[in-house]
């Protein structure tokens, strides 16, 4: 066990964990932040996507010890009231079916828009292809990302 100090959603959190623990399980089991989802555990589905200094990362494969001084943003911290342009676009386009993958989709989309505020369709496809939606809401995801980019 190691005590680590993490910068998450603008706040400093101290956790006492095995340093090999993936960030995903630190968030979910130790910090009671369960908006970030477990889907595969091997970085193949994107359900666990969070931001590390604004970049999308798969938290299921990121040992908490590797976070260091980087800032972590989770779905809970993307906006205070759930009104980030990407979140608003997701509601506007009524994207979700079951909704389980959508935290990860939204975090991936928000990271894309940080890197490329006006993404091309090819940018959207490339960047979002790491996130599986089993319900098949991909068309709406594309539309929502395009519409958030205009905001």
């Amino acid at each position, binding site marked *: *066990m190691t005590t680590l100090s993490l910068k998450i959603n603008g706040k400093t959190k101290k956790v006492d964990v*095995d340093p*090999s*623990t*993936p960030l995903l*399980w630190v968030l*979910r*089991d*130790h910090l*009671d932040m*369960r*908006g*970030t*989802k*477990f*889907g*595969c*555990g*091997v970085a*193949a*589905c994107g*359900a666990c996507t969070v931001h590390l200094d604004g970049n999308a990362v798969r938290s299921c494969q990121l040992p908490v010890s590797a976070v260091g001084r980087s800032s972590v943003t*989770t*779905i*809970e911290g*993307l*906006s205070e*009231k*759930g009104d980030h342009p990407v*979140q608003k676009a*997701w*509601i506007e386009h*009524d994207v*979700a*079916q*079951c*909704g*389980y*993958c*959508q*935290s990860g989709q*939204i975090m991936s989309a928000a990271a894309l828009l940080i890197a490329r505020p006006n993404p091309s369709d090819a940018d*959207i*496809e*490339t960047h*979002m*292809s790491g*996130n*599986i*939606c*089993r*319900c*098949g*809401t*991909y*068309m*709406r*995801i*594309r539309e929502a990302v395009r519409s958030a980019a205009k905001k």
Partner: protein
Amino acid sequence: MDNNKTTYNRRSFLKASVLSGGGMLLTVSWLSSFKSADKVEALNLPEQWASLNGYIHITPDNKVKLICPNPEFGQNVMTSLPMMLAEELDVDWKNVTVEMGPHDHAKLGAQFTGGSNSVRMYWKPLREAGAAARQMLREAAAQTWNVPVSEVMTKAGVLSHSSGKSAKYGDMASKAATVPVPKDLKLKAPKDFTIVRKPTKNVEAHKIVSGQPLFGLDYHVDGMLIAMIQHPPAFGMKLKSFDAVQTLKMPGVKDVFSLKLYEDGFEQGGFDTRTFNELLVVVGNTTWEVMNARKKLVANWEPAGDVKDTMAGRGGKREVIVPGGLESTTSQLEKMQEYAKKPAQQLRKDGDPETAFRNAAQVIERTYNAPFLAHNCMEPMNFFAHVTEEKALLAGPLQAPGWTEPTLVKLLGLPADKIEIQMTRMGGGFGRRAYGHYLSEAALISRKVKAPVKLMYTREDDMTYGIYRPMYTATYRAALDSDKNLIAFHVKGGGIPEHAIHANRFPAGAVDNYLAEGWQIASNITIGAFRAPRSNFNAAAEQSFLDEVAEAAGKDPIEFRLELLKKAKENPVGKNNEYDADRYAGVLQLVRKKSNWGKPGNEKYSRGVAAYFCHNSYAAHVVDIVTRDGEPYVEQVFSAMDCGIVVNPDAATNMVQGAVVDGIGNAFYGALTHRDGAAQQTNFSNYRMIRINEAPKRIEVHFVQNDLDPTGLGEPPFPPVFGAVANALYKNKGRRFYNQPFQPDFKNNLRDS
């Protein structure tokens, strides 16, 4: 057509009560029976559906809370079912809040999500519940104002009278709760709908996008432990012994033990399917600790041999032998080929197919195959359980709590009223979560460790556990006379461990000489309902075959089907034809028009069409394929649906689009194969799922406009996608695709376009 009508034999009693703090709680209870031709066929549904209730809460401050009785797995019932209540209650949707109901068999009825039945089964009862409440509010206002009730009007939650008097529902709610419940209710005509048919946003959307802990895996109580099960590495194996010494030394570990799920002779219901009975369990403090500790287990497995299961059933219990052995996909395919040659069970016969085939000018024979499929719900199987001597609390994702509760009663020895099952939002279901073994496992683990426990499956546990879509094959034969008329049709279908044949569906009824047969091979690989069970293979094979027959007959594939449907309507062959030929033709005509089928302007596309009827709704798709980076890509799809009244058009469109994407994904990539009993796909790294760059750019969804009572959409759009994809691939590649998944075969080019 009378075999798909819903009938409510209503012996109703309604109860109203004053909420503590004022207001009205209307409990509407009906004992109803729900009868349908596909009742047992689709999902082994009980013949007698239980009583049905709706809850409406109105508080003095004019808040309206509506309860959703059915579990939500993405089909959007938390929005569509309350819309039906609100329509007749006549409230402003903006003032409505929605809550998932508790599991309460006596009050809320079936509470079953599956078979595309939620909207269909609640359509009448929920509108009646809304209408009853509205009527009682009007009565209360009439008494208060001393005017005839017929003169009291309502609009969007406000009662009014021509004298100028008006009141909000909340003002009258307490009084309304004391009014006798009306006996006769008049429901709105479709032309008067103000909420139903209006695109309405998902009531849970904000919670979803802000990451609130809605799902079973998010359920948490203080002091909760985490449990995982190590199941055998292959179907046909079982636990022999284990050494937990190293596991117990791992940090955070509380206990390691083996546990029997069902005792010998336990009578399994249709949804008690479980693959492994002997559970090797690791319990600890946190997920990561349990995951790591489980890796240190030293387990010895042995062949399970033939296993005798006891199945409960209407005709009494019966014994079933689950065969031992370690199966492989190659040997399964060989075995299927061998069985396909043997005599099979006759499912339907019209005319004299033998003679017709003998006298035919041309006979076309084709065989289609499809593999096992894993459901791969994004949220892996999991359940929370806290079981004590006195009671049990369970919470998590489950499609049919009412079917698992009796199992818990037997396993735990507790009465049903001491077992509480909370229905969380489900991260997908697709039929998988109708099987509650993981809930029973969680309950037994909690009882053993005497603590609240969350059982969770990793993705690998989930994907390799079984309860798959079965492995199917079918051989179709068509006989054409010298004028290229279809004079006989024969299907012989088989599967592991069941076949897919729906003998009374199209083209049955449209061909004079018809024969349907089925056979099956027992297996230790467990199966379960998978989005449109059986139909999902039938539509692929049959619709692909009909395309080939149409071509042989020199006819346009839509025109060919329409001619058959005309015959089925005007001069039907045989009995028990399950489909309505007009509605079937209707979706084909609509998709033909909307896709500009056969018209100039679509030359860049390889086009394929297919249609199907299942779960009481009709679907047709035109799939347009282009070659992109050397491989076929479905660029756009046109869909036509007939599900009667479309309760929530935007959500319905979303559902159809999702089913199309799911269909393309499974047709192209879906496969769960085995080697020596072990699943060869274990995670999304080797089980290919369709991704955003492979999804069509456009899926245009159209609905047949009519005022028929609504039917479901979760399943019906899915099956014909496979057939339309196969038919478009034929145009693209110049050769037919008979074996799913199709994508691995793209490279074997005969004539690439």
